[in-house]
């Protein structure tokens, strides 16, 4: 890395780098968290810092801000243009003048990053008053409204008077950005700023960040685990693993000609458009056979992906659909027609599978009642599901896509018999959920099992893995002696690829991906016909995600399962599912085969969703196209 001479003037010209970090090492008393981190950033440059959880990327940025937690220390040197001071080891009093003024930060979790008891306007104004960049309280308030308008909040004057809980996640992140930009900092640090947001909102916020830093010539250090986001926004990337930068270079170079095996593995695992010879996703282990998206290919690929040929989508997928695993049993059963939502305007979707529907949902309505806001007024009703209908044939891989508030979680709860519909009917493997009493649902519970989103929260920390996995066998009506339980658990552990001695350990001794394997083992031990997966990989690191998806896919085939896969991530659903319903505000806006929905979305909402979701290849192609003119 080229190092500038140390005699560079403090208030140097445009050649002086904005930020120069040299051999930054962050460590606790016992071990280093970040070792020998070096970075030189020019003014207005946008650099991505990529890494998985535990890679040290967040520690690096916290060290830059001088906000390391107690017991964590930094050595090395951090220099910011315009300041003579080495930020490492500088007294807090001096750092305070830089934080919020020359260097600001947007954090990951917009829901908790703002003070819940303070109106949004004053929170934005505070940063200007603190650094005396506004002459008076009134001037700061006026500027705050201006800034809120700058981040495209509708009705900024009203927004300034709102409390954080009155704004949506995306809006709160805009407020954070307004705050961070208030003093026109030279450097903006963003730590996973869009990870917690919905797909469509993520796109908008990213565009806003990009636009804002470009306009002001602000340097951007963007921390994320999401490679497609980096490809979208950054010129240069650093890849971190285990506290060390393993590779750096321009975005196009690193992503199309990765040098380090880790980078290659990460790329392979996050590229959901690429599969190996067996049609499986690449993992870090199998990355050897992976061909990164080469720049020349990209340009060719774009039109092919963007141009859709209406009408052909459904037909082509017919041949791609897997053979029915369970033949129709009774002649009286109608052919398992897929998904005809009441509002689907499209011609009846093609029959994909001859199997009888395992899940049949008719006119499903679920309305929640909000607490009454006046003594005599009526309770407000909040419709979560507004009458949806679909069938899922046996052996199908059925995707449910939607953003937060779409009703997909409510749907899932009802399918699993954890909630009751307000009206309509839900039959799962011959069991009617609507109106069923708890004891009548035992059979349903045996036929349908769930893998939940959060591998940390969904396993009881006080139970051994053996007992966790065997628990579904304890349900009433099943008599499995303990020797057989142990044998079944051992089989399941082998099936999900965990060592046999895992049975005697506790959940906290496993990583997120391993815990999700435990969840899958627990779900499958009673041999259900239907497996419902609720965002099973969205809490996992990219490199683990591919492994778990491959595993799920294998097991669905092996155990002849019907899979209902709920996700906000279109890329993941596209890989794993044959059929998809798109939900928005409690309704199915579109349904059909996966390819048809992705290649030729008919509904406006689906189109927005598809356009907003990012794939590494598309983002990289866009970057290439922009670079070449």
């Amino acid at each position, binding site marked *: 890395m080229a190092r500038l001479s140390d005699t560079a003037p403090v208030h140097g010209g445009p050649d002086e780098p904005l930020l120069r970090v040299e051999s930054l090492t962050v460590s606790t008393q016992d071990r280093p968290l970040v070792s020998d981190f070096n970075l030189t950033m020019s003014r207005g440059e946008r650099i991505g810092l990529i890494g998985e959880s535990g890679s040290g990327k967040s520690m690096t940025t916290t060290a830059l801000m001088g906000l390391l937690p107690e017991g964590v220390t930094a050595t090395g040197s951090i220099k910011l243009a315009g300041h003579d001071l080495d930020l490492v080891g500088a007294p807090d009093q001096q750092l305070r003048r830089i934080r919020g003024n020359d260097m*600001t*930060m947007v*954090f990951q979790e917009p829901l908790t*990053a703002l*003070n819940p008891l303070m109106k949004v306007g004053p929170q934005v104004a*505070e*940063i200007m008053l603190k650094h005396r960049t506004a002459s008076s309280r009134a001037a700061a308030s006026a500027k705050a409204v201006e800034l809120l308008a700058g981040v495209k909040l509708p009705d900024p004057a009203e927004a300034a008077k709102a409390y954080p*809980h009155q704004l949506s996640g995306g809006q709160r992140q805009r407020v954070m950005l307004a705050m961070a930009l208030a003093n026109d900092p030279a450097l903006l640090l963003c730590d996973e700023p869009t990870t917690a947001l919905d797909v469509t909102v993520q796109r908008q916020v990213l565009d806003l960040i990009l636009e804002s830093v470009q306009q002001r010539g602000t340097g951007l250090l963007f921390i994320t685990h999401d490679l497609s986001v980096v490809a979208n926004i950054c010129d240069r990337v650093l890849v971190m693993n285990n506290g060390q930068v393993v590779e750096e270079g321009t975005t196009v170079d690193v992503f199309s000609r990765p040098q380090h095996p880790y980078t290659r593995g990460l790329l392979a695992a996050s590229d959901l458009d690429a599969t190996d010879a067996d049609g499986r996703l690449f993992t870090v282990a199998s990355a050897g056979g992976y061909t990164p998206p080469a720049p020349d290919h990209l340009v060719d690929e774009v039109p092919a992906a963007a141009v859709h040929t209406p009408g052909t989508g459904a037909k082509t997928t017919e041949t791609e659909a897997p053979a029915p695993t369970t033949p129709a049993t009774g002649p009286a059963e109608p052919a398992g027609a897929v998904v005809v939502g009441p509002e689907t305007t499209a011609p009846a979707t093609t029959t994909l599978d001859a199997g009888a529907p395992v899940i049949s949902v008719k006119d499903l309505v679920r309305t929640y009642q909000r607490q009454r806001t*006046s*003594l005599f007024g009526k309770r407000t009703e909040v419709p979560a599901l507004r009458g949806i209908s679909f069938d899922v044939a046996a052996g199908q891989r059925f995707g449910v896509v939607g953003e937060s508030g779409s009703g997909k979680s409510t749907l899932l709860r009802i399918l699993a018999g954890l909630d009751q519909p307000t009206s309509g009917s839900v039959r799962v493997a011959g069991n009617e959920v609507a109106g069923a009493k708890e004891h009548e649902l035992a059979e349903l519970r045996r036929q349908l099992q769930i893998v939940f989103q959060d591998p940390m929260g969904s396993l009881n920390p006080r139970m051994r893995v053996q007992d966790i996995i065997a628990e579904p066998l304890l349900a009433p009506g099943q008599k499995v002696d303990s020797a057989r339980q142990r044998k079944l658990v051992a089989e399941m552990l082998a099936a999900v690829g965990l060592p046999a001695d895992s049975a005697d350990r506790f959940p906290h001794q496993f990583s997120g991906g391993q815990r999700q394997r435990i969840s899958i083992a627990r779900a499958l031990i009673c041999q259900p016909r239907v497996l419902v997966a609720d965002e099973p990989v969205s809490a996992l690191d990219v490199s683990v995600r591919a492994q778990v998806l491959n595993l799920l896919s294998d097991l669905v085939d092996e155990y002849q399962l019907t899979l209902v896969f709920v996700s906000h991530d279109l890329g993941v659903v596209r890989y794993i599912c044959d059929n998809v319903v798109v939900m928005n505000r409690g309704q199915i806006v579109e349904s059909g085969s996966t390819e048809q929905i992705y290649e030729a979305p008919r509904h406006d909402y689906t189109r927005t969703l598809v356009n907003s979701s990012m794939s590494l290849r598309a983002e990289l192609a866009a970057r290439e196209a922009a670079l070449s003119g």
Partner: protein
Amino acid sequence: MAIRLLVNLARFAVTYVAATVLVFLFMRAIPGDPAQIALGVNATPELLAQTRAEFGTDRPLIVQYFDWALGLPMGDFGTSYVTRQDISPLVLDRVQVSLILVVLAMIVALLIAVPFGTLAAVKHRSPGGILVSGASQLGVAVPNFLAGILLVVVFAVGLGWFPANGWTAPAEDFGDFLSRVALPVLALASVQGAILTRYVRSAVMEVMSEDYLRTARAKGLGKMEALLKHGLRNASIPVLTVTSVQLAALIIGAVVIERVFVIPGLGSMLLDAVGNRDLLTVQSVVMVLVAITLIINLVVDVLYTVLDPRIRKAS
């Protein structure tokens, strides 16, 4: 917000009425005829009947209930069966004394707890913070009557700085009032302060790990500045909850302290009345205690809405 207040008032009214019914029924369930108690075992049936008529205990229960319950809000608690005196002026006198004691004790407790609890949280790794935590642990373990006796031994008997007991109304002689109220207030406040210190500490510790405090630091605020501007109000919400519960407990806890310091408060009145089997007085004092507790809850609920915008309904 107005709706919330209305709902709270309605809840207050319902609870209050239910409490009057319960208290009334419990008192009647206690065996023994007040007239018999007042006259002794040798009373003639005629005298008994006359006394019952005088007390009104010969009337049906429902009539007796309404007679008593409807008088309460007007401040008419009836006439004692034992002393044959009007209960109301006595109770109102005693309430003042008890409330002064309890409110002062709570203020002093908060004055101890908020700074020390915050300190213990901010410096939870340094000797000072550990010392505060340890001291508060000790304070929680000491019953307040013991604290009272210790205070008397040291400051009244040993040093002679304060009188050991007695009461002077503040309007009478404010200086004397202060010197007499100091030790009982300190006895109540030291234990309360220790309990609240622990709650303040954990509330502040929790707030310190919140993301918005990190945001405040990233804006350029210093650690203490961020805590004071963004943290304390957030931390005050759980502390308020505990304070309201403790305040109600303190009113009852003051009973013992009033005994130790010979203070003519509600507590000593209640104990005397129980000892004398003065049912109507017990009934009335208990009702006053219930009403005070309900009012505290009502006020705290209103304070929540003032403190926390998330509770206010968007209207």
